[in-house]
């Protein structure tokens, strides 16, 4: 199974939408890699710089509630994938974005607000994810672990490498 984790970047706001993650004007690209420079270009968040090294080095996004709301564009997942971000940890997700993540064999993990607050308070952290046992380890100034649950269907999609491979075999 794919390895999930890496340095985390915090996007400390609710309701970040997919237009902010990848603006519609870039949806005319016909390859995923062409999306790479435009990640989070229109994010409405004070102090955030889409060109920062912090974002370039990130492997995990940690954020608040209703992440990925708005448009159904899977480009919002692909733009993370081509920037080597394969995990988003949030208080909650918009339905289509969450499904798109698992459909691409990527990981959308929900943690309660209190856990997100703790990760945010740890400063710069590296995140390690054990998908089989549902454990997140955050290493920064200290080290903390958090349990998460994934339902079996989501786990099977990740193991199959996505929904297309799963569905092609089964239906």
């Amino acid at each position, binding site marked *: 199974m794919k390895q999930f984790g890496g340095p985390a970047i915090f996007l400390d706001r609710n309701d970040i939408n997919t237009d902010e993650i990848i603006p519609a004007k870039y949806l005319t690209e016909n390859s995923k890699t062409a999306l790479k420079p435009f990640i989070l270009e229109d994010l*409405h968040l004070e102090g955030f710089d889409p060109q920062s090294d912090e974002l370039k080095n990130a492997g995990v996004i940690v954020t608040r509630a*209703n992440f990925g709301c708005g448009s159904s564009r899977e480009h919002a997942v692909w733009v993370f994938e081509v920037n080597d971000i394969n995990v988003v940890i949030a208080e909650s997700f918009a339905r289509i974005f969450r499904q798109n993540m698992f459909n691409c064999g990527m990981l959308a993990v929900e943690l309660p607000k209190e856990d997100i607050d703790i990760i945010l308070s740890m400063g710069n952290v590296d995140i390690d994810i054990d998908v089989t046992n549902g454990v997140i380890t955050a290493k920064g100034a200290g080290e903390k672990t958090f349990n998460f649950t994934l339902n*079996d269907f989501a786990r099977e999609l990740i193991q199959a490498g996505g929904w*297309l491979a799963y569905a092609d075999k089964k239906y």
Partner: protein
Amino acid sequence: MASTIAEKIFASHLRDTPTPGDAVLDIDVVMCHEITTPIAITDLMEKGMDRVFDPDKIKAVIDHVTPSKDSKTATQAKILRDWARRHNIKDFFDVGNNGVCHALFPEKGFIRPGYTVIMGDSHTCTHGAFGAFAAGIGTTDLEVGILKGVCAFKEPVTMRVDITGTLPVGVYAKDVILHIIKKITVNGATNKVMEFAGPIVDRMSMESRMTLCNMAIEAGGTCGICMPDRTTAEYLWPFIDDKYESVDDAVKDFKQWHSDPDAHYDSTITIDVSDLVPQATFGFKPDEVKDITDIEGENVDQIYIGSCTNGRIEDLRAAAKVLKGRKISRNVRGILSPATPSIFNQALEEGIIKIFMDAGFCVTNPTCGACLGMSTGVLAEGEVCASTTNRNFNGRMGKGGMVHLMSPLSAAAASIAGHITDPRKYLQ
């Protein structure tokens, strides 16, 4: 067991239950447009899986950027066009016959009560107006839909929204749904079906019901849904007259889908619209909504009337009521994009296009265009648009621009005044 309409549709389309709570459904209509489908087609080709499960159940249109504006959009259109030809998809709509998918496909009669409908477009929830389960999906779901005719969803959880009272003059379905989103927030219906019911919905036209359901996604809803009734049957009659002896027969048959009186709802809210005034957004989220009277005089540079939310004939008629015999302010520019060719034609016949043009509006071909800042009305940095569309996200209509969402009547009023204003004064 008593069921909601969404539960009945799930039960009748269930292909598989991979885990309890997850349902894989057979899909009746897979709809495609040129922004999210070409990349699915290319991926399927690269994987040696360039097949379609049933060409008659796939509908395709070029609508987001049309006619193509540059080489990239021309390539997207070509990929979709070539694919439709290759697979004998006869319901494919190209330049000259194309329009905004969520206005075009209903008027072709493709959506029926009890259907399951998917599209790589979040506003697919619009089609719930016909008593269908219709949901936006991503490109991978679309690929599987095209290839296998199935899609996975969580078992439906339904929020019932009862809309009661009397709709005041100058207040429309758009004002009602903006008010509902303000009340429940952009996260209020996430992972839920929004079932719209009550006397106001019963009296609404199909166009108004589509406006209502269209914006369910702006509250996070999987689908908006209305009970199919006589209004639905009359709208669909030209397409179903071979199946039913009479409209009465169709109405009777549609009842099989109605939610049972004792069905279980996750929550129920009641919205009395009797005192509602015209609404508009102020900010960058669709739940940042105010009474239009509270933002009187706010600056606008552009007026946009169109889109899958409000580009239908009754929307154009409402705006024309304000525009007739008047000129738009010199401080603003106005753009009308009728949502489909037949709406355009109807508006021509009714003299509505002339009213818009005499007022000083530019009339474009049917397209999604400006709604998502792709063409026909992109804003410059710092500019503001009074718009009948569905999203006011940061940068949505152009980088650094701002959008105020409102009804066609309110948008028309803003074009005359040159700023946001209460449209009701133009109705006297």
